[in-house]
């Protein structure tokens, strides 16, 4: 975009002209994100693209990624929405600590999360050893383990955004419903949640996108084996060392899915004044 068109647009919208320095810095900042994306597009083996994406191993990874990320999103809804409600609406001691702990995976290196999961629910973990002894449940190196790892990393995104939605939603309607005799459960399911449907969708999709891109916790906790735990990001990591063209194509698949999600969510994620 040339400077003159930018200025033109700015003037048309009646906004002040942006300082040149700001634009240059913004441009450099944007280049950091645009260049790697461009590089993937330039270096992509377009001629073999279809063959690569339809290879059995790649299809297996794509299917597994879909299963795991959708399961993780479903679990996140079941437990994350109640958690968000509790954190937003109830006033109790230790709420800020609970908030910090449930948000931690957003900033924690996923590999640390994977290690912690291994020590907690691994076969020899503090809880996992009893799961194994009493129920013969073994989470590491199973698809369920991959789902657990993805849920651990992605649910905080849903909790964080739903908590915001619960906190900022208008409670007067709920009060009105309550005075008309609705039970607390009816208020929640008939008034609160329907009103927050757009937020629920946005949070769910965001959670799903994060689960789809999960790498560190999965490879640490669930291991890496095609068909059971090797999701697309793990497949990219391994292909980078053995089959770089496939790694690029798979990366592009992930980029495209994520971009579509983010573009469609843009108006939900950024509130305009």
């Amino acid at each position, binding site marked *: 975009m040339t400077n003159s068109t930018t200025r033109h647009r700015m003037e048309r919208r009646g906004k002040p002209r942006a300082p040149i320095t700001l634009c240059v810095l913004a441009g450099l900042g944007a280049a950091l994100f645009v260049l790697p994306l461009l590089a993937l597009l330039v270096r992509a083996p377009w001629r073999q693209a279809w063959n690569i994406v339809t290879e059995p191993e790649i299809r297996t990874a794509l299917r597994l990624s879909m299963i795991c990320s959708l399961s993780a999103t479903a679990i996140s809804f079941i437990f994350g929405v109640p958690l968000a409600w509790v954190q937003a609406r109830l006033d109790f001691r230790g709420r800020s600590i609970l908030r910090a702990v449930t948000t931690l995976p957003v900033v924690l290196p996923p590999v640390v999360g994977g290690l912690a999961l291994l020590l907690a629910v691994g076969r020899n973990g503090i809880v996992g050893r009893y799961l194994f002894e009493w129920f013969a449940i073994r989470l590491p190196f199973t698809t369920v383990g991959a789902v657990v790892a993805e849920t651990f990393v992605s649910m905080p995104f849903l909790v964080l955004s739903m908590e915001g939605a619960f906190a900022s939603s208008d409670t007067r309607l709920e009060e009105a419903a309550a005075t008309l005799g609705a039970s607390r459960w009816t208020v929640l399911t008939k008034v609160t949640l329907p009103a927050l449907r757009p*937020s629920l969708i946005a949070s769910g999709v965001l959670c799903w996108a994060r689960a789809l891109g999960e790498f*560190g916790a999965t490879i640490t906790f669930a*291991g890496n084996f095609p068909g059971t735990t090797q999701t697309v990001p793990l497949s990219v990591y391994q292909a980078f060392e053995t089959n770089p063209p496939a790694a690029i194509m798979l990366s592009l698949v992930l980029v495209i899915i994520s971009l579509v999600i983010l573009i469609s969510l843009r108006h939900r*994620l950024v509130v305009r004044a």
Partner: protein
Amino acid sequence: MKIQNKIRPITSALLTLLVFSTASPSVAVTKSSKPRPKPTRARVTKSPITSARAPVMTSTPAARSTPAPPPTSAPLRGSLTVFAATSLTASFTDIARAFEVAHPGVKVTMNFAGSSTLATQIQNGAPADVFASADTANMNRLSSARSIEGAPAIFTRNKLMIVVPKGNPLRVKSLADLANAEVFVALGAPGVPVGDYARQILTGAGVTVTPRTLESNVAAIVNKAALREIDAGIVYITDVAVDDYRVDGVAIPDRQNVIAAYPIAVTKASRNKAAATAFAAYTQSSAAQAVLATYKFLPLK
């Protein structure tokens, strides 16, 4: 009756920023933290090769075994970055220290990871001066990409072994036991030397194993056995030796085993070829060979 249901801007910006940021691979770029069986610095002697600066990275085995040219007067200096296979972690940390003692002007930095990870990093411009691989396949990958100087030299050899958690809870006794579906097995991923050797061994022994996980370096397999998350894995005998306080090993008979040959080479992109060449040659010196032997590496011949 409009209900405000927009997500708060700060939360949203944070989420948008973080959605891609956290999916980073955990490439092991670590210095050794493993305890070593024995102190090995006592054997640091200045053999003629130790201080050689001349090209010892020759192509033929015959040329390799001849003594190095006489040492030149200019002392080596500067920094040296050595990329070495995970299985060399303990031994190369000692060897690098001994090399620094022999050449006080040189500072050696080590980067340990799976050979295939390192080869990919070097191919993509990682600043390595020396590459020590656990197999010839990954070295050849760099040779054919013209990323290394001259021809690589084999500096040590290794054998493979079954690694099990301490006490061997599932009583794994042989390769055939790994085919049991109750035994959770970890192998190296395709392209990772320890995985390729293991598949070679299993194929040779006629044992069909369905591993539960494919790891990107040998340390990841040993760690998972130490944590008792896997019941068995195939690693080098040297890994079991260095970690024998937390894992046990089950020998693989020689008729089923393979010999892993470790090549070393100077990279084409090295900015300190003199020191890099000297280091590569040093790994074949009697001092370095003695260090490797304490870690149970096999002699060169």
